[in-house]
């Protein structure tokens, strides 16, 4: 009984939080000045508005906006992860093997939670060990970048005392503009749902 009361209160609370957000004051105005010219013509929903400087597995600077024009499958991992992340990467590989010529522009992007241990060098080792090809981009950034991208992707995570991360397992499909068009929670998911989503944004 007590549980039910508490639960209903929590539900009520989350509803009232939603209901209370006021009406739209304004919408769809022109974009505010962006730091780079590349970013000026991004859609308001594009996650490429995050203009962080990442490092890829080749230790080259990388901005998300460089993905513009390509269909993207994105997720977050860390390479010391023993259980969930290998399964996640495996899920993505299972998608990759089903890609055909029309999917040639598809990029797989893995962003690391682990800003301390997942250096570009480490990411390259990992990519090699996992047999990830040229269409895979592994990104290293600082704690703030990781936090901001996690919030945009809505992927919860928490660093444990042993340095590992507990994290949500989510794959996202981004269209050529960098807008999230599909997301899938869980591990050992079948490739079909992601492939269907990709086919809509080619």
């Amino acid at each position, binding site marked *: 009984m*007590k*549980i039910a009361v*508490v*639960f209903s*209160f*929590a539900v009520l*609370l*989350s509803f009232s*939080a*939603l209901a*209370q*957000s*006021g*009406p*739209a*004051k*304004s*919408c769809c*105005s022109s*974009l*505010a*000045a962006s730091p780079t010219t590349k970013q000026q013509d991004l859609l*308001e*929903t*594009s*996650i490429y*508005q*995050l203009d962080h400087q990442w490092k890829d597995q080749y230790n080259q600077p990388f901005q998300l906006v460089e993905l513009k024009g390509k269909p993207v499958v994105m997720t977050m991992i860390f390479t010391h992860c023993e*259980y*969930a992340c290998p*399964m996640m990467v495996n899920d993505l590989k299972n998608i990759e093997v089903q890609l055909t010529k029309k999917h040639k522009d598809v990029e797989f992007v893995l962003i690391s939670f682990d800003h301390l241990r997942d250096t570009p060098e480490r990411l390259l080792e990992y990519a090699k060990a996992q047999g990830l090809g040229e269409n895979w981009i592994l990104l290293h950034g600082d704690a703030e970048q990781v*936090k*901001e991208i*996690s*919030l*945009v992707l*809505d*992927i*919860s*995570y*928490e660093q444990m005392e042993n340095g590992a991360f*507990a*994290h*949500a*397992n*989510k794959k996202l499909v981004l269209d050529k503009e960098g807008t999230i068009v599909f997301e899938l*929670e*869980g*591990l050992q998911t079948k490739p079909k749902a992601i492939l269907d989503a990709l086919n809509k944004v080619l």
Partner: protein
Amino acid sequence: MLKPVETNINMSFKRIIWIIGVLLIGTKLPAQDEMKLIPAGSYKPFIKGATEKLVVEAFMLDKYAVTNADFLEFVKANPAWAPDKVKALFADPGYLSHWPEDYLGDKSLEANKAPVVNVSWFAANAYCKWKNKRLPTMHEWEYAALALPKGETDSASLTRINTDWYSRKTPQHAEVGSSYENQYGIWDMYGLIWEWVYDFNSVVSNDASRSSEEVVAGLFCGSASLNASDASDYASFIRFSYRGSLKGKYTTRNMGFRCAKSIN
């Protein structure tokens, strides 16, 4: 930033320069910017179960939540965060929806000492960075909020403030500094608004090691262990569940923030 210039100036002269500098900075700070020291310690996070104690390093925390007047200054200095300019990725349509249409010329907003609400995590984070501060972590916030009201020794006093507030409707927010001051000199940790924390999305509900059912069960175990004398856990439960329902771009009429700062 003040940095001593490495020349051959003698020590006493250097010291005078420092003192003048500190005085100048001190007089420039409006009262709302005042921060208080939260001494190091440990606490038992609600979410972690009964046995784990978590160490919190000493840090500085804003005495008051950020007000509408404070946030107006931020928006003026950072037009990208204006209600009509903000990007949908970083704030939902409720962003600052309680502000008048012509907020720039609004004298009452300039003097409005009620906590700003209807702000997203991204906006709150940007504000704190602009102030050369940061959002407090969830553990820092929870730890600072455990301090009893000034002069109180009865832990029930805090619980009373908390549960009274949770059960009250607060359509209009009172000014900061109007609910209670705690033993660190921090105002209104409860009683006015809910507050963003840096890592609000750190309670993982869908990872491999803990299924979402287990996390929910964990929350409910906390709630199930409640009894009449321990309503503070009940309030924690509500806070943790609420945070779990948020996203970085959400804005609500009862959610504001205050900033923190690390001590080197």
